[in-house]
């Protein structure tokens, strides 16, 4: 553990808050690890036993092969991943600098710890020492440098370029010692540790990586790549000299191997296979999985663990197109969402109700608000004031393969009729929706889970320096006060302070924003009951280092 003096100043405050009862233990864990305290240290300070020790009480069985049904896609460069699926396989072979767990707490992984300067513009990453790649090379700062440069290389074309490239230039990455890298950012950023766990951010071996990971699969992870046949199978096998220790004081992982089998996109066969015990789990990261949940929820041999996510079906209105330019019309439509009903009918109650701002209760900076009520009378009144006493006709664009989106649209159509909205649902294939998701005037767009509240707000509700809405600002809604507050939040590490700003941000979005969010979706980790110690991650990432299989 590090010396008290070197800790981020916030940790001391957090500890005080914990002692005076201002923070719950859980919140303390989340916030202190957010500023770089290692998980073990945080658990220690909070007076909790480390989760690893708790586990030691159980009897762990080593060995066995886990069988996963998962798409085996073409992979060359990990930084180029555009789907989560390939990261499910390579996450077993290579690793990330950080790890955002299922409670949205980000912890050091290949890092020992990190420190952020007060202005959040200088981040010092201290690397864990003594880690070896599976080809025997030592993991050093050069690997981090090399990997980050790959992200920022235009020719590689990584999606991290759009994420990290906004605040980091290649020249801002400084190697200060063999095990320390300092990032000098162009502007303040609080989400650096979260970005380091973005799924394409696997750390590569700078000595051997040549653009194709499958040819030289040299990572620091617990498994080695034995076979990678696109569209068919992938097999990873346990390595003996992995750096993490298990609860039995021997190196992880517990399982001998993991086999990934590509069974195609059709779910029926995969459901039958897991029922029959031919596979142990299904990779639902890119697939959704409501049908899997429905089919398996009553099966005694199968464990279904939900995870609350910030995945949302966003009812988005183009604030620059009539009639949605008028806030009263937007408010009227938002009032027509019968949230309880929508959640129950569209997603069988498997989620939590949303409140028309893009922050969900598990985000650290979430500020509690009352859920707006369904009120067609008030909506009708707003429409009348806006100049539509006889109601109005609108087209609602939805992708037809998202079944819950379609049902949400159908419920909304019915419930909005008394207020005067005559909704014409225009279904189209999902691919066609993605062709014009930023262009339609009224539509329902799926947004994926992101671990911090600031992330989506920056992506979807801001403008660039010239005042033009950013690329993913699908509603073109730009609000001066909102942008100013959001900028302030982006530079505030103290979560209490940030939450105060978020209270205002949430109010603004509820009052004059351009979106309705009726519910936040659950996702499910589905495993056979012989699989032990699995966590359900909001992104359904498969991190199986400490997973073990019961003796059959």
């Amino acid at each position, binding site marked *: 553990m590090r010396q008290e003096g070197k800790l981020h100043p916030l940790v001391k405050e957090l500890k005080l808050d914990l002692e005076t009862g201002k923070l719950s233990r859980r919140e303390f864990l989340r916030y202190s690890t957010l500023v770089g305290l290692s998980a073990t240290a945080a658990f220690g300070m909070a007076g909790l036993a480390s989760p690893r020790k708790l586990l030691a009480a159980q009897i762990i069985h080593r060995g066995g092969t886990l069988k996963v049904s998962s798409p085996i896609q073409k992979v060359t460069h990990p930084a180029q991943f555009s789907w989560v699926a390939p990261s499910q396989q390579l996450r077993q072979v290579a690793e990330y600098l950080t790890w955002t767990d299922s409670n949205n707490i980000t912890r050091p992984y290949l890092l020992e710890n990190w420190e952020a300067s007060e202005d959040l513009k200088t981040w010092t990453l201290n690397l864990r020492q003594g880690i070896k790649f599976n080809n025997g090379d030592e993991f050093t700062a050069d690997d981090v440098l090399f990997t980050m440069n790959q992200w920022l290389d235009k020719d590689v074309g990584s999606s991290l370029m759009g994420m990290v490239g906004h605040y980091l230039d290649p020249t801002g990455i400084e190697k200060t010692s063999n095990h320390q890298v300092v990032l000098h950012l162009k502007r303040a950023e609080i989400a650096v540790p979260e970005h380091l766990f973005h799924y394409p951010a696997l750390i590569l071996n700078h000595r051997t990586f040549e653009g194709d990971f499958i040819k030289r699969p040299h990572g620091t992870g617990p498994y080695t790549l034995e076979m990678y046949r696109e569209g068919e199978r992938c097999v990873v096998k346990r390595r003996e000299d992995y750096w993490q220790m298990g609860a039995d004081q021997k190196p992880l992982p517990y399982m001998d191997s993991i086999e990934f089998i590509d069974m195609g996109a059709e779910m029926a066969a995969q459901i*039958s296979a897991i029922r029959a015990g031919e596979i142990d789990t299904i990779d639902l990261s890119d697939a959704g999985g409501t049908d899997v949940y429905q089919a398996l929820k009553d099966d005694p041999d199968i464990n279904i663990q939900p995870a609350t996510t910030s995945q949302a079906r966003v009812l988005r209105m183009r604030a620059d197109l009539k009639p949605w330019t008028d806030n009263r019309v937007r408010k009227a439509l938002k009032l027509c969402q019968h949230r309880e009903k929508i959640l129950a009918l569209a997603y069988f109650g498997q989620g939590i109700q949303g409140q028309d701002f893009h922050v969900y209760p598990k985000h650290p900076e979430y500020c509690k608000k009352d859920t707006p009520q369904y009120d067609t009378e008030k909506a009708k009144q707003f429409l009348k004031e806006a100049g539509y006493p006889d109601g109005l006709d609108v087209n609602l664009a939805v992708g037809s393969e998202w079944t819950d989106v379609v049902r949400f649209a159908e419920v909304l159509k019915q419930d909005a009729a008394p207020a005067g909205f005559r909704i014409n649902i225009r279904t189209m294939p999902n691919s066609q929706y993605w062709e014009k998701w930023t262009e339609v005037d009224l539509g329902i767009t799926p947004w994926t889970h992101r671990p911090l509240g600031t992330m989506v707000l920056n992506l979807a509700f801001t403008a660039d320096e010239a005042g033009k809405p950013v690329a993913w600002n699908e509603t073109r809604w730009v609000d001066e006060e909102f942008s100013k507050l959001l900028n302030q939040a982006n530079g505030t590490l103290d979560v209490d302070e940030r939450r105060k700003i978020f209270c205002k941000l949430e109010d603004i979005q509820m009052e004059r924003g351009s979106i309705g969010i009726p519910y936040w979706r659950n996702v499910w980790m589905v495993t056979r009951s012989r699989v032990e110690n699995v966590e359900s991650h909001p992104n359904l990432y498969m991190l199986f280092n400490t997973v073990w299989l019961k003796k059959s």
Partner: protein
Amino acid sequence: MAKFIIRRFFLLLLTMFLVSIAVFLIAESSPGNVARNVLGSFITPEQEASFLAQMGLDKPIWQRYLYWLTGSDWHAEKKVGLPLKRITTPKGFEEWWAVGEGGNLLRWKMEGEDLIAVVKPPDSETFERPANDRWQTYPEGGSYFWGIDTANHAVRWEKGSGETVWNFVMGSGWMAATGGPAEYIPLKKGFVRGDPGVSLRTGRPVSKSIFVRLRNSLVLAGIAFAIVMPIALFLGILAGLKEGSLPDRFLSISGMMFSVIPEFATGIFLILIFSHWLDLVPGATVFGEKAPWERIDMLILPVLTLTLIELGYILRITRASMAEVMRSSYIRTAFLKGLPYWRVVFRHAVRNALIAPITVIMLHVNWLMGGIVIVEVVFGYPGLGKYLLDSALYKDINALEAGTMIMVMVAVGTQLIADVIYTFLNPRIRYG
């Protein structure tokens, strides 16, 4: 007969040629975008352009078709000025190299503004050396070089073309370079030389995946065929002999029942009953490294589904044909002659009654190969039908073409077999 078979062979080649052009044109004109299908909806225009260029999809359609048919290495050889060679590494990766003087294999890469040659001598370790002497100059300024990159493309690298690109070079950091790869030709030998190319969807050589898939489908269809045909013919003959009897009514009606229920419904019902409810056999096929015949238990339900569908159909055709023959005058004559009953049936009736079922059966071989796609999807069976379906959905032209060519061969081949069988069943049929 030999002449007939040779004529059929040329017909096969002609059909394959025409079908391959048709598939190319249909895939070309259908909506959708391979880059977005493979990389997802959120790729940037630059990523899309780079993907299309590296896959050679930015070239005009006639050139892509020519490359697909005859390969691209001969064209690339002219550009590079060295013979090209495809090798398979000990780990099983296919790699293209240029053959330099002394039998050294060569590839190139660009670091900053420097061209680096990767040299692989016949029997020693690979090494790298600078190769800036290979640059050639354009008359209008700037230089270019045609070579082979490390990802099986012939590439035209450019520098001094005015556009600045930042490249990261290990050991020296970020270097400004004026240029980079400007044009790609993905290397392949072409279909006529036995190389259908690389699947755009999976990046794997099509030839490596498709034969396993074909084998799997053949196993499934073959077993179903071997079970259905004898049973259907036997029961059909039995029903046809005694038209209107109780067994005939029972067989006809149950046969009709199973052949009108679509196979996905039959499949799902069978899964529910035998897998979920009775828990007797697995309801999905997960083979892993095993071949289908090593997990016979997983084949039971798919085969049963196919059997039920096919059985009724063939049975009813056989029955109708048999009943008709039994009513004909020459059979009556045979009976009147006093021949024993079974002799009349087998020597005189069955041979003539089989012509219609054989035609249907042979057409159904083709249907079994491609048409079992629904059964394959329901059971997650890794067969050719499913492979073709996925390829078509992704507009994966190389895989689609290869699969279609196999289907054409099967179709024309089974028709040929049917024609030959006719001559044995009815000696009056002659080809020449």
